[in-house]
């Protein structure tokens, strides 16, 4: 089994127009910047993929990563919990101009809906958002005297994620808090592409320390010394 692809360009080559794309990371922590930028490169060269639905906790910062995708005009819709942040002009401008759609999801519900998709659970009940405008139109039910909202799984065509160590079978570890949404998105997409900082042989990751088992990963590409979104934003990099 060898899931390794040699370039980020190959890794993102088959993502079609209109795809639902999960992108791992929380802010810049664990964000697969090189995969995102490879996708932007492809769009600039070929016009595809466009009309994407992007699923991420945020909606991009500064002029790199998801923000650069939005600026480039590849994104039709964001599904996220927190699009508002200090450097979120790319999304804000398009949103206020009515040029991008937003599905706002509470953060824990977003995580659980993604996990449910990966786990074959089509719907579940959560207390979160009960009685709020984000629950409007959703079924509710009482369990043990408390009210809950029914939420559906959230699937994607592709997940772009960032690991620390990887192997050719697709086993992954993550660095520090860079784990966040990455292991969940790996489970929830038809196809998962992981960039890893270190690519080792099968067995190079202790089986007890594998965080994402290879069954959830389709493509692995090594990106040594990956860039950090937060550093790029703070130094004003424009992609």
């Amino acid at each position: 089994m060898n899931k390794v692809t040699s370039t980020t360009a190959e890794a993102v080559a088959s993502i079609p127009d209109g795809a639902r794309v999960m992108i791992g990371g929380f802010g810049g922590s664990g964000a697969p910047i090189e995969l995102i930028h490879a996708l932007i490169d492809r769009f600039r060269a070929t016009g595809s993929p466009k009309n994407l639905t992007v699923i991420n906790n945020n909606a991009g910062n500064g002029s790199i990563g998801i923000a650069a995708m939005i600026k480039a005009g590849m994104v039709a819709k964001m599904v996220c919990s927190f699009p508002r942040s200090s450097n979120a002009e790319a999304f804000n401008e398009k949103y206020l101009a009515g040029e991008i759609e937003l599905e706002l999801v509470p953060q824990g519900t977003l995580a659980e809906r993604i996990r449910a998709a990966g786990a074959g659970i089509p719907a579940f009940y959560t207390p979160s958002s009960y009685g709020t405008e984000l629950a409007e139109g959703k079924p509710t039910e009482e369990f043990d005297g408390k009210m809950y909202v029914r939420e559906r799984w959230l699937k994607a065509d592709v997940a772009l994620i960032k690991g620390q160590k990887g192997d050719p079978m697709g086993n992954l570890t993550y660095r520090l808090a860079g784990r966040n949404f990455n292991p969940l998105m790996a489970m929830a997409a038809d196809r998962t592409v992981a960039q890893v900082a270190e690519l080792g042989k099968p067995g190079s990751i202790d089986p007890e320390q594998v965080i994402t088992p290879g069954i959830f990963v389709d493509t692995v590409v090594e990106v040594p010394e990956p860039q950090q979104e937060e550093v790029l934003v703070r130094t004003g990099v424009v992609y």
Partner: protein
Amino acid sequence: MSDFNLMEDKLSNAQIAWRAAQDIEDGSYVNLGIGFPELIAKFQPEGRDVTYHTENGVLGFGAAPEPGQEDWDLINAGKKAITLKPGASFFHHADSFSMVRGGHLDLAVLGAYQVAQNGDLANWRVGSKGVPAVGGAMDLVHGARRVAVITDHVTKDGGPKLVETCTFPLTGVGCVTRVYTSLAVVDVQDGHFVLREKLPAISMEALQAVTGATLHTDGPVGDLIVPEDL
């Protein structure tokens, strides 16, 4: 054809397992049910890289260790000692069944008491007596891209195991996609059994006679040929 002896000329369990193993694709993720289906791993064709999953939280395990080398924290769902291949991983039970229900396995192979022509499977209990036990069977029949059954074609007293409607308690509804028996390879398609292969020595009529539902064909029926020395 008339001299086919149902009990003597049928395939052995090892031969059924061998046949099922031929359909497991290179690079696939497979769960083999406890018992008879576990045999399939022994016949995995050379050059195919198959990763085995077991419900209790191991991906990428290999053969049993040498006697005396068992580590009883390292077992499969049948509680037999196993070994690990390079690139194996451990995970908890909820993640393990996420792999099952979430559609991440390419194939699950299970045993059966009965399979109905609509794909219903009965394999967990034969009546209301005794101690019931279900294990992971009701989960394994959902989620894997293909759910295959390996089984003798008939019961010990010659009754059909491929039936119109299961009479034993169900494990899952409309879940089986292919059945490997001691006489034939049968697909479940649109609510019918479709015969793909049969032993050359058995006639269509004789095969139909020991099958509890109509065997359809939608093209040539292949010869079910397996190594004799298994």
